[in-house]
């Protein structure tokens, strides 16, 4: 008999306890169905524009302070740590290029996404999880509305849109940190610093960074929503959803980073 709802609380109880391997395949199948539903419903009208804007604002605003601080410190520390090695070869003038490339290619997307996975992913997981266990999602369903569109599509889209913007912001703040360090130690002017940095950054770097940030953002939103939307077992389930959103989100981001480095490396050789 076909299930008319995607209430996992009940599904959990309905099925007989399968083995570990079966459970893994069931979960994988659930994840793909969940993603499929997003692509099927997320871009079709009626749109939840107001909620999408609210989520974009929330995700950006919630992470901004931490991202600014982390980006700036990373810029300062990375420059400070790289300088002695370059000085050995008398190549300290390469610092701006090195920092620019490192920040844009890897540090900014990775740092931004890891922070967002911690702050945004856990928040989405906990929020949707608590809505599930307090029957708020069921209440949306029985009032003939589409909770998936309102809660999941908007959050996944918002994370996918916002993380790339935050990534470039992190890169910019990181560069400012690096500039501070370089100008203090080398006396390099801001104009020369940015000129050297930007000259070394290619269009491929910007494209690759944007694509990576989009994928990371999608991952954070999707993992948080999946864990929260499918949480069960009361308050314990809410905590578990928040925790899993962070752990699984970060794990997937690292895997995606490794894969993307290999992939974009093909275009650089």
């Amino acid at each position, binding site marked *: 008999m076909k299930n008319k709802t995607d209430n996992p609380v*009940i599904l959990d109880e309905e099925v007989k306890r399968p083995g570990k391997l079966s459970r893994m395949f069931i979960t994988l199948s659930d994840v793909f169905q969940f993603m499929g539903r997003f692509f099927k419903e997320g871009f079709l009208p009626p749109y939840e524009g107001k909620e999408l804007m609210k989520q974009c604002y929330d995700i950006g605003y919630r992470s901004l302070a931490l991202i600014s601080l982390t980006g700036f410190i990373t810029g300062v520390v990375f420059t400070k740590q790289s300088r002695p090695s370059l000085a050995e070869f008398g190549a300290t003038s390469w610092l701006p290029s090195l920092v620019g490339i490192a920040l844009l290619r890897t540090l900014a997307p990775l740092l931004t996404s890891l922070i967002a996975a911690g702050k945004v992913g856990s928040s989405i997981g906990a929020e949707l999880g608590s809505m599930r266990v307090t029957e*708020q999602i069921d209440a949306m369903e*029985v009032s003939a509305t589409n909770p998936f569109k309102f809660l999941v599509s908007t959050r996944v889209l918002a994370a996918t849109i916002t993380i790339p913007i935050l990534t470039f912001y992190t890169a910019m703040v990181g560069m400012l940190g690096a500039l501070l360090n370089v100008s203090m130690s080398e006396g390099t002017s801001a104009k020369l610093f940015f000129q050297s940095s930007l000259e070394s950054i290619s269009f491929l770097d910007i494209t690759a960074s944007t694509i990576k940030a989009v994928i990371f953002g999608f991952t954070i939103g999707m993992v948080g929503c999946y864990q929260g939307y499918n949480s069960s077992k009361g308050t314990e389930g809410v905590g578990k959803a928040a925790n899993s959103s962070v752990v699984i989100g970060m794990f997937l981001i690292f895997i995606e980073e490794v894969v993307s480095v290999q992939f974009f490396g093909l275009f650089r050789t």
Partner: protein
Amino acid sequence: MTKEQISPEKVIEVKGLYKSFGNYHVLKGVDLHLNKRENLVVLGKSGTGKSVLIKILVGLLTPDQGEVLVLNQHVDRITYKELLALRLKVGFSFQNSALYDSMTVRENLEFPLVRNQRRLTKGEVNSAVEEMLDAVGLLHTINQMPSELSGGQRKRIGVARTLILRPEIMLYDEPTAGLDPITCLEINSLINEVQERFHTSSIIITHDLTCAKAVGNRVAMLLDGKFERQGTFEEVFNTADERVKPFYDYNFIQ
């Protein structure tokens, strides 16, 4: 509502309904019907499957076996689109109210309305929300957050949010659970007012016999996964059945 005003037309009909969770068999051949404009109280101990029954009625759960007809439609055999249309006619008031806690009272009521009737103007939505809040006596809470409301107020707002779609059938899941006796009486009056004013047919799930007596035109008692006793309040409880007597004694003697 007098017996004469209750129509013999059946709005809900359940035949031979079975539902299990793993090895735990909750419903074992349930037969039940609800007449038009009737208030039917479903009684039973905790864990006997009362809430499961009404969740099956709105398609939140699927039955293992049996027929479930709501407004002459087989809930488990219709398409998702048909189910959504049916859900517009069946209101569900949750045990814990299930108010959206990130939204104000106004937004809670607007949420189902604007998504189901997209052609309504802002003014029409506002007046519908205000009218419904007025009907439950809580117009003054319109800009409050659910966390600022008492348990009784939350229940009322939950009912108002359900009623805003003008359902033909109301399903109340433990409407008086966790409330003080005075608020329980207010909720009982509200259920009767809803029936009178909005001409709804209702199933009220409870184990509160005061509520059952106050609102029920008919009472059905769920015992061991089946409705073994149905009738008026007096008919159901005028028995020496050891499974029923303690229930009555606890509510009215203790």
